[in-house]
Every structure is written in C-alpha cells, then in structure tokens.
C-alpha cells in the first residue's frame, strides 16, 4: 500500500532544480507555492518525501532568517512562513514519522501521507511538463509567418459591412466591454475548510496581546477546541507579524513561541485587511 508508491527519488539534476542552488535564499526566491517549496527541498536534500525531516528544514529556515536584514527580505520570509505553515497545517500529520503501525488511526495517517505524496508527484509532473511548454513557446516565438493585409483589389471586393448600430447601441456595447469581468476569488479554502475566520481570530489575538503582556502561542490557543481555530489563530499571528504589529521570540527551533505586542499605532481598521489573502 502506502510505501509502494515511493520509488521515485527526485534526482538533483532534474529540470526543476533551481539553477543557482545555493542556500535557502534560492528556494525562497524561486518558490512557487508550498509544493514547489517542498519539491525544491526534497531535491536539494535528495530526500524521499516520506523521510523528510521537518526539523532539519525548520532549522535551516531559522538559520536563514537570522541572516536577513532588509525589510524586503523579511517580507519575503514572512510570505514563506505563511506558505510553509499552510503546508504544515495541511499535512503535518502525514509528514511526521508515525512509528509503528498499530491502529486504524495510524493507517489513516499513512494514507494521508500517501495522498500528499501522490499530489506532490503530480505537481512535479506538471512542473516538468512546463519545461516542455517553455521550450516549445520559445522556439516558436522566433518563427515568422505570413500575415499581411489583403491585396487592395480583393479588399475592394469584400462585401459591405452591415451596420445597424446607433451611437447609443455602440455606447451600450462599450459599457459591456468595460464592465470588469469578475474572476471570483479562489483563496486557500480548498486547503482547509473555511469554517474559521482569520480576521476574527486576529481580533482575538489582538485583544489578548494588546494589554502588553507577552504570551506564548500555547497560551494563545488555550481553550481552542478545534484544529481549524488553532490553524486560523496561527495564521492570524503570521498576518499580524506581517503587518508589523507583533514580534515573537523562539529560543530554539520548535521551541516555545513567545509573542509580544509591538505596534505603536493600531486601529481597528487594520484588522479589516487581515486574512484577506485567505478569502475570509
């Protein structure tokens, strides 16, 4: 079952390997979503996804963070955090080593891991296919084809245009053409059911921290009874950090996360935009 799917160890020289693969920054600048990130990490470490060590990845990321100085890089890093957290949230259970296969729950976890693995392979296939598209598009872009105006004598023979529009009709068509064509937004809802509003959770976090006392993340989620709430609260923390409203300390990788209020000015308006990326 599960592990029968794991023969394909992505090789380092595969086309998706970042060309200038030096350090974490490369994965950061090139990553294209959580799968992309995971893929480049796997490629870099020649790891089977089922064996990937999250703590190693985290260590590396944290040491990378320490080297950051500019605000722009920090911004990038925060984006990375959001994405990475989403991924972890998505399948953290599936990725973590589960030990002995003893009960039905473990089997379910393994299946979840299997699913993630399959999805990652699928992503990788499309990524590789995209290289073929790039080659084809590039090759064809330089080709020149004949596309010249019709010779005058044939143009003169073209049948008269039947035109029945009044200026008002024409204006109506213009209105239609200028009406923005809504692309309804797709958030990350598909990754986790949008049952919990990040904005609400952010409001909660703000209320907890604003008094001034730093709190650990553990304290912040005390009493949260649903996984979704915990995830949303964590994402809210990331969003608040991105908005430079809070700071946090973590003494060691995977250690206790202490969060403190750092915003100098804050209005409830600032809350309105939080979580906008998530569609709620």
């Amino acid at each position, binding site marked *: 079952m599960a592990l029968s799917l794991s023969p394909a160890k992505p090789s380092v020289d595969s086309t998706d390997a970042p060309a200038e693969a030096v350090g974490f920054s490369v994965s950061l600048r090139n990553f294209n979503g959580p799968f992309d990130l995971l893929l480049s990490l796997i490629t870099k470490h020649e790891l089977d996804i089922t064996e990937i060590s999250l703590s190693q990845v985290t260590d590396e990321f944290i040491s990378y963070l320490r080297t950051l100085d500019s605000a722009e890089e920090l911004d990038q890093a925060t984006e990375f955090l959001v994405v990475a957290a989403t991924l972890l949230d998505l399948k953290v259970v599936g990725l973590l080593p589960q030990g002995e296969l003893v009960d039905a729950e473990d089997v379910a976890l393994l299946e979840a891991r299997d699913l993630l693995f399959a999805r990652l392979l699928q*992503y990788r296939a499309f990524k590789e*296919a995209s290289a073929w598209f790039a080659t084809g598009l590039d090759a064809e872009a330089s080709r020149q084809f*004949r596309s010249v105006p*019709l010779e005058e004598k044939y143009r003169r023979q073209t049948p008269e245009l039947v035109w029945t529009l009044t200026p008002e009709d024409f204006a109506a068509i213009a209105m239609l053409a200028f009406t923005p064509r809504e692309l309804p937004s*797709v958030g990350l809802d598909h990754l986790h059911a949008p049952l919990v509003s990040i904005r609400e959770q952010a409001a909660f976090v703000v209320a907890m921290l604003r008094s001034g006392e730093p709190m650990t993340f553990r304290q912040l989620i005390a009493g949260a009874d649903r996984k979704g709430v915990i995830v949303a609260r964590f994402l809210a923390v990331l969003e608040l950090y991105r908005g430079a409203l809070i700071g946090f300390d973590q003494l060691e990788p995977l250690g206790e996360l202490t969060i403190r209020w750092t915003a100098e000015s804050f209005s409830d308006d600032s809350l309105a935009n939080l979580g906008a990326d998530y569609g709620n």
Partner: protein
Amino acid sequence: MATEATEAATEAATEDATPTRIPVDVERGLEAILMIADEPQSVVRLATALERTVAEVRTALERLVADYDGVAGTVRRGFELREVGGGWRFYVRGEFDSVVHDFSLAQSPTRLTQAALETLAVIAYKQPISRGAIASIRAVNVDSVVRTLLGRGLVTEAFSDPETGAIHYATTDLLLTQLGINSLDELPHISPLLADGSNGFDDAR
C-alpha cells in the same frame, strides 16, 4: 534524362485529356490562397475553397511542402509551408529568421513566468478545469496567472458549471500555434504515475 522527358510529356498529355476539370491545379490554387490568408487554414477550408476533396488537398499540401523543402531536386525556398495549430500557412524558413527580423512587425510576447507555465501545463493536461481545481493541484492561488493566460489568448473559458458557476478553462488553438504543434495529442505524455493523486491514475494521458 530521356525517361524524365517522356514522363513529363505523358503528364502533360494526361492534363490535356481531362478538359472538364476546373483548370486550377490544386497546388497552385493552394499557393494563391495561402498567399492571402492571414491565419492558418484548415485542410477542410482549403478543400472547400478549391472544390476538391480533403484527400486531394492533403496530398497537394504534402507535395508543396516537399517542393519548398527542396527534397526532390527542387529549390529549397526561403519560406516553407507548415501545419501548426491545425492549419496551414506560410512561414519564413527557420534559418532565415535573423534576416527577416527587421521586417517583422510581430512583437514577440514577453516570456511567461514559471508560475504561468506550470498553470498552463495543468490546464493543458486537465482541461476543462476550474480555477479551484488548478489551485488545488498547484497549492497556490492561480487567479492572476489565469488572467494572464486569458489575456494572452492561450486559454479560454470553456463553460461554467451549471451548479457551482465555476468557470472551466481550456486551451486554445493559439496555444497550439505558439507551441508549434497541431493537436493536444502532441503534448508529451506525462508519466501515468504522476498524473493524478486524488483518484487513482486512470485518466493520465
């Protein structure tokens, strides 16, 4: 030499022997039409215009390609005839691209980003597909990338799901043209193992 001359004579005689036939040689008619057409012409359309069968037109096109390519002792022309995106049109022969560069008004479009290429690949292999489904394969929001692809004319809205209202996207003939292929069948096969993680691997190309 003598044989060739005789053959030519015989051919000419055959032509003369069929006086009722519209005196337009298919190949010459194709040359005339393709010279004024401003987009690729399907074999069917060409056959209609020339009042010939599709098979006749197809054969004639093959002979023209060979003629311009200079494979049978003819001159290898500075142009060629290519079937791309399901239609035929005149192209400058690849090796002359640099010569004609200054004369070309076509601006080569800016290159697609990696994200756009990957999204395009997903749509190409999984069409018709909704943005939600693409996003779930790519694990990122794809709205702006899809908008770019729409603007480039590489994908189009195929239909809206009557229940969810979700728009499903498909690739266009322009994509085929820009890839230099004639049909989606020419896309490279992706390993069946890698096709679809969610529901088995049945529908992989």
